[in-house]
């Protein structure tokens, strides 16, 4: 049974600027059980791993950029330089409790393969991504006639690392064809607040700027 969660968002951690004040990271971290073994794929500068380790989680990371890796290792985090598209195959089955892909899905060459690897390596996968179905994006394409440009998608089309955008609706379709079970879903609106529960999916797809899904394997 899918639960769409709505804790009170104004979590004190966001107020204190934990995880750089990025609410999506706190939403992700809230889905992880204490003491769990976690692999963060595309861990960037390691802010999520730091937040998780402060909560007693055994965290590991993979990061593509050399600068990101070096920053993480210098922080004492266990992070390897690697590529979500090519390096996940070297991890054994069931090595982790949670495998996280935070704001990275749209930058992978083969999102479906990556998702399948995540659920092979981990019991649960947590995927967060910018929702390409958000109304601002739709407006920019429809009326502006150009590729969208927003605060969380700041790149020009010719230099963006993001090559596989999807909407919340698209992602649900991928889960369906991949045999993935959606355990929890959270959408964040343009102000970074969690959207109210009980809204229909089309509403989330239109007004959710970011989405976070907790996934597991279908039995």
């Amino acid at each position, binding site marked *: 049974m899918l639960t769409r969660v709505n804790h009170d968002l104004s979590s004190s951690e966001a107020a204190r600027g934990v995880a750089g004040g990025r609410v999506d990271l706190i939403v992700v971290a809230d889905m992880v059980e204490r003491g769990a073994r976690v692999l963060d794929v595309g861990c960037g500068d390691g802010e999520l791993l730091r937040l998780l380790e402060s909560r007693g989680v055994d965290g590991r990371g993979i990061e593509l950029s*050399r600068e990101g*890796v070096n920053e993480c*290792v*210098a922080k*004492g985090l266990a*992070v390897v330089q690697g590529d979500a598209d090519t390096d996940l195959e070297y991890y054994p089955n069931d*090595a982790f409790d949670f495998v996280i892909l935070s704001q990275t899905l749209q930058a992978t060459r083969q999102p479906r393969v990556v998702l399948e690897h995540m659920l092979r390596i981990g019991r649960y996968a947590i995927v967060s991504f910018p929702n390409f179905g958000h109304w601002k994006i739709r407006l920019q394409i429809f009326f502006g006639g150009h590729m969208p440009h927003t605060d969380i998608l700041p790149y020009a089309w010719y230099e963006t690392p993001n090559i596989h955008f999807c909407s919340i609706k698209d992602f649900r379709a991928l889960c369906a064809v991949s045999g993935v079970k959606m355990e929890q879903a959270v959408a964040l609106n343009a102000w970074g607040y969690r959207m109210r529960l009980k809204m229909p999916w089309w509403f989330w797809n239109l007004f959710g700027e970011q989405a976070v899904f907790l996934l597991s394997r279908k039995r």
Partner: protein
Amino acid sequence: MAEASATLDLADRRREADQPHSLLVRFAPHEPLRLDAGIDLSPLQIAYQTYGTLNAERSNAVLVCHALTGDQHVVNTHPLTGKGGWWETMVGPGRPIDTERYFVICANVLGGCMGSSGPASTNPDTGMPWGLDFPVITVRDMVRAQAMLLDYLGIESLFAVAGGSMGGMQVLQWAASYPQRVFAALPIAAATRHSAQNIAFHEVGRQAVMADPEWRQGRYFAAGANPRRGLAVARMGAHITYLSDAALHRKFGRRFQDRDNPTFSFDADFQVESYLRHQGITFVERFDANSYLYLTRAMDYFDLAADYDGVVANAFRGTPTRFCVISFTSDWLFPTVESRAIVHALNAAGARVSFAEITTDKGHDAFLLDEPEFSAIVRGFLEGAARARGLPAARR
């Protein structure tokens, strides 16, 4: 190449091999080292240096493993060359391997020529250096000898083991052989096995030594001879592999050495030739030719997977050690792909591993040089490990 000081060099080097300017432990005849070759080596002596202070809990010891032509003189003046230590950028007060926090130990490897038992040591049965009668040793034998040293020092568990190149091989062997004794491991510019190309380079070096008539089937000490030319050529060839095309070009280009035009002879017209000759000459002043044969052989034999059913990951299953694997972009002797193979094996074994590739044009030798990004990573990794180990924070 200078010949005048040949005998003096030999006498100095023999003395350094038997009675080194170092701390020294001699193991009694009833404590032999059982070698991979199936021989019990005795008597065994290990020369080593220490820096910093061992804490009351004996939990802050860092073992530094040196590379092929390195030695135990990590941060002190070298007794033969008078030059500074080989890792002063990394080890010392306030350095990433901080001697104000950690007790740093470095031992001359088994088979070396700076005071640990090796082919230049005196064979008690003959009163002359062992030469080729010394048994062929392996990286695992080196690590076993270091473990005997730690037992002697009363250090049950190391906070960290760190080393580059052949030192990195020892680090991997330490983590595989004694996982409970290694809290953190830093294999730098290393590999789980020596590649065919690297064995090939070593063979060229060994053939250069053995082709020198002064080598005399390894019995040059007895004849008062020294295969300087052969060893210098071996060093020149090897030195090229430690650098990179870009670094050589940046340092020397096609520039002439103290002349404006080619001499139409085989003098060292080019700066790069002059540099290599210098590297060769200075090397033979401090290094033993037979030691060079034995240590290159030990590296050639290194293949961690061979001891674990052909699967490197099996060497690290269930390991409690945390790893930091580091490679350098321009290193073509131990390229990044080798470090990635280590990382994949550690991932498959579920180990806690960090891995970074440092951008530099300085080739394999970058691990010996001042590379700020490299230093920051070693420092950060050790800080994190020290917190996990409960060692006190660095003084600010």
